[in-house]
């Protein structure tokens, strides 16, 4: 089921880069401003009627980058600089990180997000994913549990040290020979909770694989999670804080991010289930008042901005209800708040009982 793009071999991409260069030269030789037409994508809109086409992964229009506005001239400058670097990486079959690229012209790029945007634009122009450009991110995800695999011939044997965190492989396309006896995959928002579970030797007593993206998940973590689900056909459960950021991270796993909407079909994990923690858990598990923090104004406006996202209404209306409830109750709490009763409550009671009882949405 893994969607694969065609024509993403380095030689194909180099040809496409040449086409772009040639079209720019043809433009300027005809006395026209060089123009790049970049498709625009979005993975959600705020159309309340639900009559939108966001689920189809179609381009919603084209943006023209030409030398008519200063901001476009600047973007064109950045984009072409990054394109030149990508051409060199592909020709020499080397890899570079987004950060490496940033440091090649820091004074021009000014900030990392400028480079990231250019990389996204290039992916759209070349119809490929970021890793096809030989551009990788540093990789911040962690994994542990009943799993063994090879990455570029290197063996990752997590089963040997069940409760030790391993970094998520950066070159996901080179991951092979995945072996697992796990029954499910647990996706954890935060490293602190991941380490709590490692400390409690959660995997000794539960046949599972645990992954964390350490906050908003990066591309390798999401691609790796997708690969595991596809290869092993395991259910995946996600545990996030009961606050707007936790919910947003949950939707990033499930639907992808807006910044990389063009690639959402290869990054999202539609199978993921929300295990907790739910706003209603505070009563269900009898959390004392001091564990509950009032929502700030910023929290509230973030929730209000998330509620109209079309995919919530269309695909996970029950998630949306929980989000509404969060806003109504006006309090948030972290996963760790469950430790108020006992340190091992999370690993010994909360997670196993939820999975066993099917208490996830």
């Amino acid at each position: 089921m893994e969607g694969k793009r065609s024509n993403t071999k380095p030689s194909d991409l180099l040809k496409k880069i040449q086409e772009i260069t040639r079209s720019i030269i043809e433009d300027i030789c005809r006395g026209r401003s060089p123009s790049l037409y970049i498709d625009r994508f979005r993975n959600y809109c705020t159309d309340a009627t639900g009559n939108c086409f966001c689920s189809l992964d179609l381009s919603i229009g084209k943006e023209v980058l030409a030398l008519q506005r200063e901001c476009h001239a600047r973007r064109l400058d950045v984009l072409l600089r990054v394109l030149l670097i990508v051409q060199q990486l592909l020709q020499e079959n080397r890899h570079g990180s987004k950060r490496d690229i940033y440091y090649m012209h820091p004074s021009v790029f000014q900030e990392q997000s400028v480079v990231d945007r250019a990389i996204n634009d290039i992916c759209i122009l070349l119809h490929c994913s970021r890793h096809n450009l030989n551009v990788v991110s540093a990789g911040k995800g962690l994994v542990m549990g009943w799993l063994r695999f090879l990455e570029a011939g290197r063996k990752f044997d997590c089963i040997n040290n069940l409760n030790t965190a391993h970094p998520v492989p950066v070159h996901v396309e080179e991951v092979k020979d995945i072996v697992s006896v796990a029954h499910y995959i647990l996706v954890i928002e935060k490293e602190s909770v991941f380490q709590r579970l490692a400390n409690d030797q959660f995997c000794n007593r539960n046949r599972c694989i645990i992954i964390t993206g350490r906050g908003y998940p990066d591309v390798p973590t999401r691609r790796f999670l997708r690969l595991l689900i596809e290869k092993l056909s395991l259910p995946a459960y996600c545990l996030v804080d009961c606050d707007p950021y936790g919910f947003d991270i949950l939707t990033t796993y499930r639907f992808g991010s807006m910044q990389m909407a063009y690639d959402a079909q290869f990054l999202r994990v539609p199978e993921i289930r929300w295990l907790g923690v739910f706003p209603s858990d505070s009563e269900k598990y009898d959390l004392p008042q001091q564990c509950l923090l009032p929502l700030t104004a910023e929290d509230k406006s973030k929730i209000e901005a998330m509620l109209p996202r079309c995919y919530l209404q269309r695909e996970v209306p029950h998630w949306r209800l929980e989000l509404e409830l969060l806003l109504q109750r006006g309090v948030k709490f972290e996963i760790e708040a469950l430790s108020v009763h006992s340190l091992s409550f999370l690993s010994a009671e909360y997670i196993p009982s939820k999975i066993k009882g099917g208490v996830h949405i």
Partner: protein
Amino acid sequence: MDVSLVHQLCQNLISSAIQRCRMSDHLCRLSVFLKLSPPSDPPLVRISVSDTGVGSCLEEFQCLKYAMDPESAEKWDGVISLTTTGINDSDIYYYHLNLKEIVSTRRLTKLPSSSKNGTTFSGTEVSFSVFGSVDGLLVKLTYFLNKVLILRIPNVAIEMLVEESDDISGSRCKTLVPANDCFPLTSAASNVERLKSGLEDYVFKHGNNLNDICHSCFSSGVHLKVGSGAACTKRRRSTGQVMEAIIIISELSKPTTSSCFRACDVKTEVLYFKDFSPSSISQSSLNGLTSIDWKSYGLILRSIADHDGYALLEWENLPPYAHIDIVMKPEGMQKSHLDRTLIRKAVKLALNDLKEKNTGALLSTNALKICSYAPDLARTIGGLILSSNDLDFQGECLSLLGLQCQEIKGETTEDCIKRKIISAIEMNDRKPQRNREAAPFLFEDDYFQEPDVLDEEYEEDEQAFSSFDL
């Protein structure tokens, strides 16, 4: 002496003389003559304005009105002598006009006329005498006439002379404004063309202060950047109003003599003509000038000042020793409420025309900013070509650029690309904003919206005006 009152009177007399010359079918001469009497205290000056145009029907003098304050009353008795004869008249008529007389019917006194003895000619002389020094007046009148010369009024020669006499050397005559060449009225040269060459001369002669082109400034083929435009009202073409505008940008090397310094003033006097005379400019016309988006021509207007009724535009960012001259001339019926739009339209047409004809001139502030990206863009695009390991692709790109493969050197390629980028930016900047290349796609979704929205300049009352470039 109250210079402004006398000056005002002289201007009016000259203006009406110009009208009489224009009505004539023959070559005409217009002389302004100031005769300074032998030194006396206070000095006495006889000022006369004479022309060989059609005779006067006196109407233009009837409506002269001046508020005479007691001070000027001491210097001028308010009496003007008039001598005029029409081409068909057999006599020359003499009058006295007393401007102090409040009842207008009593102002004019007819004097005995004299016979022309069968000769055929026409003309008018108006003269009056005032007490006081005339230095200030001479400067102002010279300035005024130098501006009139811009118009190159067909078949009219204009001059100004001053005669001084003293007991020692008798009388000396000095020419302040030499009689200009008479411009024949040919159909080939349109009004705008005449105005254009008149303004070019004005610039070459440093405001017509010199008798000839200033060779030290304009010798080495210094090229004036000239643009012209005419806007007219579309409706009721028969009574339509036309506004002509000429703009000249002159850039000099360092000026050598002091008379040349005027040429690099950062201020521009708006030369505005009404009925073939330099005139002050109306407030609505000024508003029209202020409302032009000068930035889209790379100019920053610091202020508009009023200088003796003439508008002075002060620029913020002119290059050193550059000067802008603007002349505007309305024709046809005057409807002041249209001035604003017409002036704006005509000046913009002239600016566009100048930009069209002079590569790189008047680039918009935006285009200048974008041009600053050209070197970096060129270096990167050059890099994309030269660092490619596909030699066929390299060869193809270089031949597209018109370069020989032997020339493959980074700098050559880069330079070539840079030149082409800049010329594309310049070409695009010359197009009127409405017609520029495909506008960037805008999204309804806030997520993609850029903070800087292109500031388009919209025309007001677009339907009412047509434009033609000349």
